[in-house]
Structure formats: structure tokens, C-alpha cells
């Protein structure tokens, strides 16, 4: 009898408890579903907001549940006093001996979590030539594509390293080895925003008026000489040359003036130029048409990392053949689209002379059908250079508060 008298059995509430911890957590989540709790937690002097919070809290909890909600400041100092009470509301003086709590981290609505990319240490030239026309950029203009690319790359390059080449005269200046400002010409990236045509300066149009592919050979030479990465955003690279003044009387066969077709000769000439081979005006069609192609696993991973999300499935009708790698000393540095059937639909190809240690020029040809997706271009360049992203600290002082909701049952 004595033993049974002194035996301590749990109280009925302990036997079949309401899961107060979960109730507290779900209550906090509900109140913060539209960031209401987050904003109130930072308005510690706003009595109206806290009164509304208390009304909402009382309305959402069963009438026999007593509560204490406390917001804590998080200090950035040492371990001592890491959390300091900011403001508290309660509907009872004491929660009794049997209560449970849930904590919830809220962030200030004023906080912007910045991501700072590592800068790519080369110059980015975007051909924004006002005296050139585009083809296979249907729905866009040369200028709109240039603006898009400048926007995408703005955080990945130093501002002074993104240079808009405003006309073909400036392009000619680059081809003559002269920077447009203080930027570094060597190792630069040049993005041709015209699509299949490549802008040709007037002087070169005059010089090569009887043999425009020779101009592409010159481009290949310069790419090798200055270790440029030449980027073709869509279609058959170097299929046309464009200059709205020098070629004003010509059209591309589809009614777009200022463009002259040079056919596959342009690409062949460029490849000869980058490899230092003798110029041979070669009109052989070399690209393949593999059809549906997919992003590589590396590219997909970089989509998430850089927050650029083009469609993972694309259509390729102008893919470089794998044979160019052996023929022109090119090696695949970064595949954006999975090679298929002997075709390379989208890859950065580095030119390396046999036995040489260094890269001497690169070609990034996106051999997809129109219209171009600038995100793919950006993804390719970012995948090739792999700039790191440095993200801001989430728990920076003053940007977060800890909200604790402690619940108990009336009657202890």
C-alpha cells in the first residue's frame, strides 16, 4: 500500500499529450506564410503591429492553450549573450510546469542576400556594331542581343572590362591590335551578336572585295595571335559578312541588305587562320544536323549554380563535326551540349599547336538553329571560365531574429 501510495504515475496530459512543439511550429509558419511574422518581428516599437500579431495568435490557438511569443535579437559577438530579448507577448503569467516550444528564424524584409561573383579577368568585347545587320536572330536586333549579354555578364566582369564595339571601324581597330580604351586586348572574349553574319570593317571590305572569306582567315589569324575566344551565338559561323555601308547594295538572298553570303568558305577560312594553315578558299559544307540535343551534366549543374535556366533540350542544325579537332588542332575544353553522332553542337574548342603548352585561340560555336538563346552563350562562357560565387552570410547581425513560441495548457 505504501509503495502504491508513493508510486508516481504520469499525469493524464503526459500520457496522451497534445504535440505542443509541432503546434507551435506550425503556428509560427502559418503566421509567417506571407512574411507577416517576419515584418512584425523587426518592428519592435510598433505597438499596433504587435497587437495585431497577438490577436492573430489568440485567434489561431485553441482557447485552452496559453502562450508566450518572444523575438530575440541575434548578436554577432561571442557566445555570451548571443540572443537578447527584443519583444515578447503572452496571455499568461506562467506557462506552468509542462510546456513546449518551437523556434523559428525570421529575416528582415530589408535584407537582400547578395551574391558576389568572382570576376573573370579578361576583356569581354560585345559586337554591337551599328553598321551591321543580323541574320538568324529573328525577333531580336543586334543591339538588343548585345544589351542582353551585357546585362547577363555585368556582374562577372569588371565594368571597364565589358566593351561594346559600337561599329565596324572599332572592330577594325581591334583587328589591328589596338585596344579601344584601357582594356587588355590579349585573351579577350569576342561575342558576335549578328548571328550567322560577321561584321566586316569597311577597310577590310575594300581589301577583300573579291574574296570575303579571306577576311575570316584574318579573323582566325587574330584569334590565334591574341588568344581570343571567338563566340558564334547561333547557326553556321561566318556564313555571311555584313556592313550596311560597304555592302549596302547586297542582300543575303532573303531580302536583308548589307549582308553578303560567303557560305561555308568563311568558317573553313577562319579555322585555317586560327591554325596558321595556308589560306585556301574552301567551300565544303562541314556542319552536321544532329537534331535534338541536350545540355551536358556539367552545363545543367552550372544552370543551378549561376541561376541561368535555358531549356535543357535544343535543336541543332549547324553543329561542327568532330573532324575539325584533328584537322585544325582543336580540343574540346567545355561541352555545353552533348556531342552526338560525330557532331559537336555546342562547345568551347581550344586551339593548341601540337606539342605546344598553351592555348592559342578558342572558338565557341553554338550550332543551334534560330533563334539564339543568349542564356546558352552565357552558360557556355561561364562554364568555361567557372567564376566562383560568393554568397552573403545569412546570419549577419541585425538581419535575422529568432522567434520562440512557447505553448502550455491552461491548468498547468
Amino acid at each position: 500500500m505504501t509503495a502504491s501510495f508513493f508510486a508516481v504515475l504520469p499525469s493524464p496530459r503526459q500520457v496522451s499529450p497534445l504535440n505542443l512543439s509541432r503546434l507551435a511550429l506550425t503556428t509560427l509558419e502559418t503566421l509567417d506564410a506571407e512574411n507577416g511574422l517576419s515584418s512584425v518581428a523587426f518592428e519592435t516599437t510598433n505597438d499596433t503591429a504587435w497587437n495585431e500579431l497577438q490577436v492573430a495568435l489568440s485567434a489561431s490557438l485553441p482557447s485552452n492553450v496559453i502562450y508566450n511569443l518572444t523575438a530575440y535579437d541575434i548578436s554577432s559577438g561571442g557566445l555570451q549573450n548571443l540572443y537578447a530579448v527584443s519583444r515578447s507577448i503572452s496571455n499568461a503569467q506562467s506557462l506552468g510546469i509542462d510546456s513546449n516550444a518551437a523556434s523559428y528564424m525570421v529575416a528582415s524584409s530589408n535584407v537582400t542576400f547578395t551574391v558576389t561573383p568572382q570576376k573573370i579577368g579578361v576583356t569581354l568585347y560585345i559586337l554591337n556594331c551599328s553598321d551591321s545587320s543580323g541574320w538568324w536572330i529573328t525577333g531580336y536586333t543586334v543591339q538588343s542581343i548585345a544589351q542582353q549579354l551585357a546585362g547577363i555578364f555585368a556582374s562577372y566582369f569588371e565594368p571597364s572590362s565589358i566593351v561594346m564595339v559600337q561599329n565596324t571601324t572599332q572592330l577594325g581597330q581591334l583587328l589591328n591590335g589596338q585596344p579601344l580604351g584601357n582594356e587588355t586586348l590579349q585573351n579577350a572574349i569576342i561575342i558576335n551578336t549578328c548571328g550567322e553574319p560577321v561584321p566586316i570593317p569597311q577597310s577590310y571590305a575594300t581589301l577583300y572585295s573579291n574574296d570575303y572569306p579571306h577576311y575570316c582567315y584574318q579573323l582566325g589569324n587574330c584569334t590565334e595571335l591574341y588568344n581570343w575566344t571567338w563566340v558564334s551565338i547561333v547557326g553556321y559561323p561566318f556564313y555571311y559578312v555584313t556592313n550596311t555601308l560597304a555592302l549596302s547594295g547586297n542582300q543575303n538572298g532573303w531580302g536583308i541588305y548589307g549582308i553578303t553570303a560567303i557560305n561555308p568558305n568563311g568558317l573553313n577560312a577562319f579555322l585555317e587562320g586560327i591554325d596558321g594553315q595556308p589560306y585556301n578558299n574552301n567551300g565544303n559544307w562541314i556542319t552536321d544536323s544532329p537534331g535534338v540535343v541536350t545540355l551536358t551534366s556539367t552545363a545543367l549543374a552550372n544552370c543551378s549554380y549561376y541561376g541561368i535556366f535555358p531549356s535543357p533540350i535544343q535543336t541543332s542544325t549547324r553543329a561542327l563535326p568532330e573532324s575539325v579537332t584533328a584537322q585544325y588542332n582543336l580540343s574540346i575544353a567545355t561541352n555545353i551540349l552533348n556531342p552526338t553522332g560525330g557532331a559537336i553542337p555546342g562547345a568551347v574548342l581550344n586551339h593548341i599547336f601540337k606539342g605546344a603548352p598553351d592555348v592559342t585561340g578558342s572558338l565557341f560555336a553554338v550550332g543551334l538553329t534560330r533563334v539564339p538563346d543568349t542564356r546558352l552563350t552565357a552558360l557556355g562562357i561561364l562554364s568555361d571560365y567557372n567564376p566562383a560565387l560568393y554568397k552573403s552570410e545569412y546570419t549577419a547581425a541585425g538581419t535575422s531574429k529568432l522567434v520562440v513560441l512557447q505553448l502550455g495548457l491552461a491548468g498547468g
Partner: protein
Amino acid sequence: MAGATIDHLIALTVFLAALLLFIGFFNQMNQTAILYQYHSYIATECSNVLDSIMLNPGTPSDWGVSGSSTQNLTFFGLQDPEFQEYRMSPFSAMRLVSIANQVYYSQTGQWYNDLSWGLNGAYLLLPASDCISYHDATSLLGINGTYDFQLSITPTLAVNVTQIPGNDLQLEIQVYGSGFPLSNATLDYLMFWANTSSSGFPKLNSNFTSDINQTDSAGIAFKEFPSLSSNTTFTFIVKAFEGGLNGIGYLSRETVTDAGNIIPYIQSFDNGTANMVLAQKYGNNDPPTSIGNLYYNASFYALPNTFVPVFGENFAGELNYGSGTPYQNLTVTTNNQTGFLVIAYGDGSNYGTVIAPFGLNSLGLPVTFGSNVSGKEWVATDLRQVIIGDIAYQAKLSLWSLTGYQVTG
């Protein structure tokens, strides 16, 4: 010597009696402890089952928007597949077979799950074959034959709308939570009303306002429409919010005209399309064959969390039970968005409105799913706050054992 023997016998008897008494008490204490442990286990199981339902979308996860998937479920859960934590799918929740009852419509030959039959003028009737039964749910949860439960999903805020007598159309809106009125809650509303027209078809008008109306300390607010008479037929939807808590209420003036009234059935709700049946009725019954033409004008609106309705489609037509058109089929493109179909109908002189929600949260409807809790020996309950759309709900699970007093598991 004899005295010593007697003493010995008495002592032994007392000792044995004390021993038996002690064993009895000890046994009783053990029984109590085992019972406590058993009850504690049921409470834990209740919490686990509730979390299992709320934190899992089920498999396939899109079963809420695909009626055909309902019968192919391999796991049961109500979480919104597009979110995490305690956010429930508004469409999965409306496929729970109501504990209330089912209704039969002879013209289509189907039974419909009755989540709302004319409650304040709202109808949420889904074919029972496209809903999940309680038996299937317990089987998919792996507790069939072991535990029974009842799941109640009710809005945290009760928002009641009533019409006040007077010359103008005046409405009283009452907002309260779990026993507490929600004072100073902000109210937004959507108002639809029907006008007569010479063609007999009702003309459906609307007015959407982000109002500055606020409830008073008793959780009550009033809204007057001076331009509308008290006889105007209308559908009024109001959203109340305060301190991060949202609730929704409505009132639709359903009337039975001389040509009857309309009851909207959802015939199927699959992959962004809702096939509706608008049935001509006379009250709850089939009308007489001599009944006249009933004209209707219906509009579908998607209702996003912003509470700014997005107009979808309009439908107009007429019904005549005796002339071979007891109902009309409508195909509503919902694009898997929550929303509602508001239907104005009339016989040319009298008009009424009803509303059919798509998604449980569109009108803040409750649902009770499962077995009957009354008379059970020991029932454990647990509670979670959940969000459907942006409307706050409470999910309460009551669970009891079917295996007697043994501790299982």
C-alpha cells in the same frame, strides 16, 4: 508450546494475507502503468499519422488535379506538391470523401461526394469515383485494421456573412478565431449581383474592392450597397486578414424561382479542365415536367492569393427539364488554379445565384474525413496549423486503436 504454535499460525496467515494484498496492489499498479503506456503510444501514433498526411503529397503527387490518379494512389498524403512543410493541396483536400454523405443525381447516374450542398449557396460536388475513400486512405497509410481516425480540416478563422433586413442590401460580416473575435481585421470583398434583362437571361455584374473596412472589437463589420435593393440576388465573398492570418467567407443568395433553381455538379476535374453539369432542380428535387425555362449566366474566375480574381470564361444557356434539357454541360478551363464558377439564374422575373468553388480554400470550406469518433474508448487528438492557398486552416486528427488494450508496435 500450544500458544507458540498458534502464534506461528497467525503470523503466517497475516504474512500471507499481506503478501497477497501487496501482490494485488502491485498488479493494479502495473496494469495502470501498462494502460498509461498504451495511451501514450496512441498519442504518439496520432501525431505521426497526422504528420504523415500533412507532410506528404501522396504518390502520384499530382493526384489532386487528376481524377484518374485518385484510384491509382500508392501513398496517401495531402501536402501541396509545389510547397514544403504544412501546406496542403486545395485540390487533394476536396477529394476526401465527406463524412457527411453522398448525393445521387439520376440524370447522370452518378454519386457525388458532398462537401457542400447549398451551404450559404455554395455547392462542391465531385463524383465519388474521383475521390478517395476512408478505407483506401487507411490502407495506403498502413493502419487499416489497426487504427481508425477522423480528420477535420477547418478554417482557423470563421468568417460569417449574413444579410441584414432593410431597404438597401446590407451585410454583416463576423470574423472570429478559436473562441476569440478577430478585432481590427482588414476586409477585402468580391461582389457579384444579377440584373434582369429583357431576354430573360440574368445579367451578371461585379465589383471587386480592396476595402478599408475593418472589424470592430467584437470582430464585426458591416457593408452596405446603397445602389442595390435588399431583394437583389448576389454572391458576396470576403477575405479577412490580420497579423499574417487569412480567412475567407461568402454568402450567395440562392432562390427557387418558378422555373426552379440550378445545382452545379463537377463531373470531372482533370489536368486543368473542369467538366461541369448545371442541373435544373426545384429545391433539392427534380422539377416537374411542366416547369418553364430557366436561364443562366455563369462566369469562371481564377482566384489567386492576391484576392484579385482573374476572369476566365463566360457561359450562358437555358434549361428546361420537361423539354429534354434537364442539365447543361460546361467545360471550364481552370489551368489547375483555384477559383470559382459563379452562376446567376432566373426565369425572367425572379433570380438567384449559386457558386461552385474549385479548391477547398476558394470559399474556405471545411471537410471532415474518416470514421465516427463517438463512443470510442480512448481517443487521442493532435492539431496542426496548415495553409491552403493562403488561407489558414487547422487540421485536427482524432485517432483510436482497433486492437483493444494491447500495446502494439
